[in-house]
């Protein structure tokens, strides 16, 4: 067992030099391909980037001035007031803390538990593989609906609690299938020889499978982290009581700013008396920047796991 992992570790460095040699030969076709590829990607990037930069410009513009439009890449009447409006919200410190905690705890627990399930279901010999898979696959397409789910969580004492963020979303069928597909692609020989060496399933899972799955673990962690960071619906449904102020999240605060725009049950009569103004576009833009910037920064850190051949290259079938 120990021998095997050592062997894998030793094989790794051999990947790099090979890669270099493959990129050193370049034909005309290669160059044409590169040029076209570069053009496509740059056009694509510009299309993506422009509206985003525009939004950032708007977030730095005076609200009333921005109403008449015509702001492109640079603010016309510069101000940081939109940001101070967002950041000075009283609920901000709590929201940041809860969001960060939820993202970290939720991501670690969910990725680990989901990977374990994926491992179980990737074992070809497992007797109930099909049944258990089906049980989880179906969950992606059915839901009891808002009220029954709420009642179940309430019975479990999950409402008005931090754990409602962590536990119900802990096992994700979707992520499990992604992980399982990747695990299925690993050579069977690895686990089997370890098994012959007397390693148990937990050892194989921790020592062999998890390290080999790093690219997909990184992917799934990213998905989970973003899911946690972006969720606000569960905050609204389960933790929106008067005593739940310490359970609010960033996205829920953002949602409060946005919902005056899409409030689909309003009527002219109720709005007239309510005397509510719609959140200005500029504040919405600033709030979006504030709430999404931290999670956006996560990706570059995970990208190092996305290097071809980092793991699998060492294991030849």
């Amino acid at each position, binding site marked *: 067992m120990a021998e095997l992992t050592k062997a894998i570790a030793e094989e790794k460095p051999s990947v790099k030099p090979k890669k270099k040699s493959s990129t050193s030969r370049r034909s005309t076709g290669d160059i044409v391909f590169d040029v076209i590829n570069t053009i496509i990607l740059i056009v694509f990037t510009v299309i993506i980037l422009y509206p985003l930069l525009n939004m950032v410009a708007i977030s730095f513009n005076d609200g009333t001035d921005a109403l008449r439009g015509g702001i492109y890449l640079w603010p016309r009447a510069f101000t940081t007031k939109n940001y101070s409006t967002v950041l000075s919200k009283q609920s901000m410190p709590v929201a940041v803390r809860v969001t960060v905690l939820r993202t970290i705890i939720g991501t670690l627990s969910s990725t680990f538990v989901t990977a374990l399930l994926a491992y179980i279901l990737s074992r070809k010999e497992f007797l109930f593989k099909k049944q258990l898979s089906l049980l989880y696959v179906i969950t992606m397409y059915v839901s009891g609906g808002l009220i029954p789910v709420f009642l179940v969580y309430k019975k479990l004492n999950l409402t008005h609690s931090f754990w409602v963020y962590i536990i119900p979303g802990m096992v994700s069928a979707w992520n499990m299938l992604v992980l399982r597909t990747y695990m299925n692609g690993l050579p069977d020989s690895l686990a089997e020889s370890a098994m012959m060496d007397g390693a148990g399933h937990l050892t194989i899972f921790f020592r062999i499978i998890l390290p080999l799955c790093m690219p997909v673990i990184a992917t799934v962690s990213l998905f989970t982290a973003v899911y946690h960071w972006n969720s606000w619906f569960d905050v609204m449904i389960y933790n929106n009581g*008067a005593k739940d102020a310490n359970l609010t999240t960033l996205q829920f605060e953002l949602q409060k700013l946005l919902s005056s725009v899409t409030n689909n049950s309003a009527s002219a009569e109720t709005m007239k008396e309510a005397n509510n103004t719609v959140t200005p576009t500029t504040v919405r833009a600033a709030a979006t920047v504030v709430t999404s910037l931290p999670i956006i920064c996560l990706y570059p850190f995970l990208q190092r796991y996305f290097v071809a051949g980092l793991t699998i290259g060492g294991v030849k079938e």
Partner: protein
Amino acid sequence: MKKIKSIAAFTLALAMMAGMGACGKTDSDSDSKGGSANNAGGGSVEVDEDGIKTFTAFFAVPGNEVDKGNRVQEAIAKEIGARCEMKWLTGQTADEAVGIMIAGEEYPDFIDGSTGYSKLLDAGALIPLDEYWDDYPNIKNFYSEAEWNSVKVDGHVYIVPQFGNDYMYSTDCVHNDEAFWIQTRVLKWDNYPKIETLDEYFDLIERYLEANPTMEDGTPNIGYEILCDDWRYFCLENAPFFLDGYPNDGCCIVDRDTHKAIDYNTTPTAKRYFQKLNEEYKKGIIDPETFTMNYDTYISKLSTGRVCGMVDQHWDFNDAELAIKSQGLDDNTYVPVGVVIDKGIEEHYHSGSTLDVSNGVGITTSCKDIPGALKFMNDLLDPKILTLRNWGEKDVDYLVGDDGIFYRTDEMRSNANDQTYINANLCPYAYFPNYKGMDHDEINACNPSSQPSEFYESLPEPVKECFDAYGVQTYVQMTNKSGENAPWYPMWSYSNTFTADTDYGLAKVNMDEVKHEYLPKVVIADDFDAAWDEYMSVYNERCDIDCYLNALDTEIQRRIDVAEGNS
């Protein structure tokens, strides 16, 4: 070796199960540490070390949360020994939010269920206020007995409608309701003509546009905008009853003699109105983009000051007017004109304050301190507290002149418009009962926005000039004086409670669907008559109008009976 492993696996399995099961426990632990009884978001009344009670409230409308420790909120708390934490609707509909509360049987102390009011009643979630209110005169005397009668359901009062209660008389200066609006520069260009009919209104815009195709800076002018975004499409669809001289009943015309509901969508006036819009669209007076705009785009077009006119309610485009003023385009702000279809019809655009019996704040069965909650609501109606709620603190939010008249400096005025400042400093308890009209000192208006001196202070020069030309002093006077409201008015407080599981409710949803789709089509149609006929045939086929009108007739009669004391 093997045994150890399976034991390890089993332990892990157990640990995971325990983890799932334990979550409930940890949650109550952490809650009790927080010092508050875990009564699941509502119910218990917290008393802090100063002896100030904290109540909880939920209002099923979008709103703005005030900060903890809000200055005025604390000032009020010091006076009356209680405060209230308020939650508003976010990202779901009122009915959904109320439905969840009912299913979970968790309510805050105070609630305004908005359109979910009837569900709260069905669930028995509200306490009958009239059984307790003898000790709370401010609540009991908030409305007259006749008015309370119209609020009663099954013989009891469960909610206090918060709005539309004038003290002494209405002091409204701004016509917040619907009207045909027109820029002062357009009126000025034609020497302030008298605009009475729809034809005159569009004729003026046409002539103005021909003479002035662009603004001074070269931006092309737009003749007319029709906002048609989601529920805001009232800007397109409800003008016909105004054109016929009826007030804003919202869902129908009520015949003043027969007391029967009339469908305003199919009247000859409706057809003429949409035909007019069709003509203007073809002439290019109406913005070709108008039916695809969302609300943001609409406000942004108005904000440039290019748009000569539109139908809307003032609160809906207030932001745009602020933007116009901030660019120094004072001549491009709007005044209302009460336009009718034919000369001789008396217009009813402005209505006096109205009692909306379908909305109000109530106290729930989860409230642990009903006398305390009633006292809180009662105290909020105390004259001193009313001033704190509506004006703020003396010398900080407003100043008092020698004659006792309240006024504000420019800084105070701009603070009162700044959301961040409001959240930290002002607390009008907007969804608790409040007066309009005069303050209880009988010198000032109840609210800064309707204080005459305050109003004139903020009026742009061109508007003053326009008012002088028409011999009026306020926006409200630009339209006819509102008369006494009819006993059934407003019918929208009934139709707002319709749900699609009744036949008349379904009829209303279908009407909205069909109108949303066909009215824009009719306006942009090449062949108006064909488009109108198609619209009418689909309308009659899909909507059970008779059933809808019958339901309204019944309610009209019921309201007349209540008003006459017959029920």
